């Protein structure tokens, strides 16, 4: 069974962990090529979920944040790269991670991308 969903319906959606806590919003989907016998397809490999909801659309905040970042990593921005199979899209309006927020943070810290 397959369903179609538009990319712009996923972007900006709030992602929650199994306990209902907010992980962030979907900011980007990274696709990779998947080689098959007859043809090759692009498939979504991972979801980038970040906390930009906090400073909605304020382009100027870029510099404020850059400054904060330089001044001692005070920037409130966090992001997670979540592999496709660790996110549950059975209800595309309410995406959920399969890992809890703590596990995600641990993984992010381990891969050094926090």
């Amino acid at each position: 069974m397959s369903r179609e969903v538009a990319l712009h319906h996923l972007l900006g959606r709030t992602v929650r962990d199994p306990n209902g806590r907010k992980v962030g919003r979907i900011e980007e989907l990274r696709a990779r090529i998947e080689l098959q016998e007859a043809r090759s397809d692009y498939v979504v490999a991972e979801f980038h979920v970040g906390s930009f909801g906090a400073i909605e659309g304020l382009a100027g905040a870029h510099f404020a944040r850059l400054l904060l970042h330089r001044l001692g990593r005070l920037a409130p921005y966090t992001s997670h790269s979540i592999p496709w199979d660790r996110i549950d899209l059975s209800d595309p309006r309410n995406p959920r991670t399969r890992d809890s927020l703590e596990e995600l943070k641990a993984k992010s810290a381990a891969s050094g991308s926090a």
Partner: protein
Amino acid sequence: MPLPTLAHLTAAANGPRAHRAWVSAVLCVTLATMGCAKKDYKSETGRTRAWTATLELARQQHGLRATNDAVTRQLLDRAIEARAKEEPLLAHYAKSDSERVAARGVLDSLQQQIRQLEQATR
């Protein structure tokens, strides 16, 4: 950590509210700009005197053949138009007797300039 790009920043504001706020802000400014400047006794006497001075300069330049008849006539028309508009405005804004007398004087000297320029162009 990647730096945010324009796309990231706008992604976060995907809700329709932020967008609508922008549009309505632009609309408000557009509508608000359709208003008009403040008018009072001082501004209107100033405007009337400015037309008197314009016609004086226009008559001088007309005499020197520096301008053409078309512009002189257009300035004259504009001045007549302005005088017709200022007369009731000044009557409305002049609050004291002295202001009314002064307003009369300002309008009369514009009328005099109009007459003189009319004669010069004839």
